[in-house]
Structures are given as structure tokens and as C-alpha cells.
């Protein structure tokens, strides 16, 4: 079974702090994704990566950056956390990009981040 793990289930930070959210997958997937999930808005894509050191902006990249130094690890960085970044953050991975037929994304359990 594919396993996607996230470093923390719950995180509380203060405004202005630098925040790192880590995600690791164990199935040698090429592609990794970061979403945030907010009530009534569904999931929105922040960034994704289709290869080591490669990244592309999603729908809401402002205030975030990412890092992918190794294939199995994809980090989301909040350079200076703000209260409007309080949310549930979900990491996902897939073997193929969405344009291919077999394009299921496997999700981690999520990190609930609160910024005070």
C-alpha cells in the first residue's frame, strides 16, 4: 500500500514565524502535491512537483514556497505565517500527472495548522 505521511497532525504557530510542513511518500512516485482544505471551499492546490527540484504553482501559491530535494520528500514552507493561513494542509502523491488515465492521488492524513 502507498503510504503518505505528514510530519505533524496538529501545529500551532505565531504570526510571523517560519513554518515547515513535511511530507514523505514511500512508493517512488514522481509527483507530489500540497493542498489546503477549508470548509465550504473544498481542496485548493498550492504547489505541486513532478520531479526532484522541479515545482509549479497551483491555484493559491501566494505566501507559500516549496522544496523537493529528494524524490520521496516534499516540503511546504510558510515564510512568515499569517492568521489567514490557519487551515488543514494535505499532501498527496501520484505516479502519473493528472493527464494520464491511471492518475489516482494518494493523500496523507493532513496537518491542522493554527496561526495565532
Amino acid at each position: 500500500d502507498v503510504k503518505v505521511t505528514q510530519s505533524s497532525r496538529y501545529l500551532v504557530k505565531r504570526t510571523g514565524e517560519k513554518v515547515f510542513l513535511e511530507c514523505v511518500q514511500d512508493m517512488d512516485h514522481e509527483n507530489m502535491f500540497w493542498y489546503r482544505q477549508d470548509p465550504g471551499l473544498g481542496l485548493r492546490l498550492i504547489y505541486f512537483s513532478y520531479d526532484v527540484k522541479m515545482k509549479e504553482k497551483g491555484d493559491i501559491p501566494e505566501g507559500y514556497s516549496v522544496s523537493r530535494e529528494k524524490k520521496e520528500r516534499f516540503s511546504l514552507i510558510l515564510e512568515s505565517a499569517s492568521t489567514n493561513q490557519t487551515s488543514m494542509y494535505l499532501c498527496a502523491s501520484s505516479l502519473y500527472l493528472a493527464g494520464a488515465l491511471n492518475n489516482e492521488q494518494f493523500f496523507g492524513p493532513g496537518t491542522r495548522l493554527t496561526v495565532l
Partner: protein
Amino acid sequence: AQSVTQLDSHVSVSEGTPVLLRCNYSSSYSPSLFWYVQHPNKGLQLLLKYTSAATLVKGINGFEAEFKKSETSFHLTKPSAHMSDAAEYFCVVIPGGGATNKLIFGTGTLLAVQP
């Protein structure tokens, strides 16, 4: 623009009765469509997917969905609800046409199952 609309934000059924969660999409191409389920404090799990093969798709836990191009719909059904089906369900579309590699998520339907 490509989009997906889940018509109900909350659905409540009694245990043993049928479940219907509605989803409509818009796409200029031949889309791929998915239903994901999210149980409380868990990540999303794939229930089923449509990728231009059979229009009636069977998934896990007794769920199925039918792709109806004429109605641009992909409603999720189950003949008999179980208490363990209580969760949030997301309809997801990949618009197709090769121009995008992003999933577009609906806003979710929260299913409550009453004893």
C-alpha cells in the same frame, strides 16, 4: 471554465436507506471523474473513478456512480447506507484535453447517517 459542482453541502439519511450524492461538472473535453471520501481526521481515499471506459463505475464499500454526458453529471449512489459511511465526499474532475495536470475539487458533501 472547467468546474465541478456538488449540489448538496449536507445530506442526511437513515441507516439502511439509499444514498444519493449529486455532482455536476463542466468540461470542454472528455473528463476523468473521481469520488473521494474523507473520514473525520483522516486523509482522502479514492472511492471510484471514471476514465472513459464503462459509464457505470463500481467502487469500494458498495458505492457506484454513473457518468451521464448528456446531463454532465456523475452522481454517487449506494443502495443501503451504513453508519460507517458517515464522512465527507468530494467529487473531482480532471478536465482533459491535455492542457492541465490539476485535479479540480468540488466543495464537498457531508453525509450523516442516522441510526
